[in-house]
């Protein structure tokens, strides 16, 4: 039974991932990303990380990818991508080669098992009685409290950054750009000196 779930999940993950990198239309790529995430959901459930699986779908598939789709729809990026001119001649084969190198490297490194030195540390037992959520919560709010608070601050910062970066600059009441101010001042001065020639020499040049 575990093998059946693993294989279905693996098939979904690989199909989705290949879809993301091979399809032309970005919306289709986003949908294949959701498909991949459902595969990861299955793998998480199979390993007993059930709360994380649910959170993965709620946050990743249910919010992050929707954000992607919003941007794609708003900005009309759903034109077909130009596969044409590329600055480096051999970019594509080189990129595929580098991807393969990365994969082989990871697999080779995973055979090394003398990484750690010192005694093994453990934040909390995973197996045993009690539910996954309870153990996760205990660990998160006691041992990992500082990272938790820092990620909360990070989220607030991210929201503020997004709002600041994507709003349009509205000039507030009375705001004028320096160029417009200069133009206004010179037009006033020329109007004054035209109406009263005696003032011509006495209008001061603006201090820079």
């Amino acid at each position, binding site marked *: 039974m575990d093998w059946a779930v693993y294989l279905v999940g693996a098939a979904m993950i690989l199909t989705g991932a290949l879809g993301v990198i091979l399809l032309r239309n970005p919306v289709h790529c986003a*949908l294949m990303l959701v498909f991949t995430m459902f595969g990861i959901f299955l793998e998480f459930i199979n390993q007993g990380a059930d709360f994380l699986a649910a959170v993965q779908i709620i946050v990743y598939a249910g919010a992050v990818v929707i954000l992607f789709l919003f941007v794609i729809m708003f900005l009309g990026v759903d034109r077909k991508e130009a596969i044409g001119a590329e600055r480096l001649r051999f970019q594509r084969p080189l990129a595929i080669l580098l991807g393969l190198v990365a994969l082989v490297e990871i697999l080779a490194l995973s055979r090394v098992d003398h990484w750690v030195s010192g005694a093994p540390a453990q934040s909390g037992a995973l197996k045993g009685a009690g539910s996954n959520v309870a153990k996760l919560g205990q660990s998160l709010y006691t041992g990992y409290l500082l990272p938790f608070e820092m990620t909360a601050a990070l989220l607030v910062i991210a929201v503020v950054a997004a709002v600041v970066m994507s709003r349009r600059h509205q000039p507030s009441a009375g705001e004028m750009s320096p160029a417009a101010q200069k133009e206004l001042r010179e037009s006033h001065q020329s109007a004054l000196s035209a109406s009263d020639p005696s003032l011509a020499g006495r209008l001061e040049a603006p201090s820079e």
Partner: protein
Amino acid sequence: MGGDPLFAHGLSLAVWLILLGKVVAVFVIVLVSVLFMVMYERKAVAWLGVRYGPNRAGPNGWLQSLADGTKLLFKEAFTPRTADKWVYKLAPYLMLVPIMIAFSIVPMGGEITIAHHTTYVQLADPPWGILFLLMASGIAVYGVMLAGWASGSKYPLLGSVRASAQLISYEAVLGLTTATVVMVTGNASGFGDALHTHAIVAAQSGHLAFLHWNFIHTAFVSFILFTIAITAEMTRPPFDLVEAEEELSGGYNLEYSSIDFAWFYLAEYAALVTNSAILVTLWFGGPNGPTVFGHSIGPFWFAVKVLVVLYLYVWVRATLPRLRYDQLMDLGWKRLIPFALAWLMIVAGFQVTNNVSGSGFGHWLAQKAWGFVAIGAAIVLAVLFLRAVEVGGGASEVETAQQDRLAPDGREVARRGGTP
């Protein structure tokens, strides 16, 4: 309690058959409820408007939904030329399937025994049960968004963007109020089980009948917030600008016809039925109710409560006017989310002080004093907060009025006509 006792002894053929039977039963229940609800809504809205509802098709009009379905099936099924074919076909199912699956976590009764296998009267009781509601709501947004985009024309796209923005805004309130319920359940029944829907329902049973329901344990406010949020999540009136014909000429399902439109229609009512069932599970104790001659009749009480909630939704539809889009977003982000968060913290305070053990007047006072202080503080803070939002809205109106008068380079221009 670890989960459904059906799976306690491994998977045999009997277990698979019982599971299959439960799947078919849940599917039938949802479909029949949807057909009933389509008909009941039209009838009840009509009665509330002092007129007859549909009364031609079948006895007193009760076959109307069947007639509607048949008519929709016979319409021409076309695909717009500029549509994205695969996504256009997929979108209705993305909306329908998660919502129908979400009914599987709803507990409808206690336990029944079939062929020496005891099982809960619910399709599934996973350890993360109640999170399934949030997952289903998240995936249903895809159906709405992709329906509008894949139609390849302007008005559906606009409608779908507005609809999906509405849906994701109210998901946060759903999550916060659900977290309140889970917290109360965890405190009552052990922290590990609080996400099982079976445990949520079991924690609401007790000697004092409905006084144990979460409706009361979270002091009403969370229930009200959840109800508003789930109404917006289903795009039911008064949050149904998604379907406002005067504004959008049809909304995200404009370019759909025949069977695909039927799926959207079905999905909307399936969402109504499923979300009412979950509301009853979370807040009204699900199948809890008085026993009859020593036997518990859980499914009957569950059905009664769900029907009451469904009537409330129909009543609200017949009564309240529609919210404007900016009012809706304002409500979700600026009022409901801070309120839900603040109430979560207050209920957390309740739970902590309720765990103060010991008898005697001093301890009782310690447990309840927090409650009174908290409620008083909540009321004061809410009034201050709302006042602050009003004042902030007034200030930005003044600034907009000033901008109307001064062009960006400082010259005066005539005020645009009308009030600021």
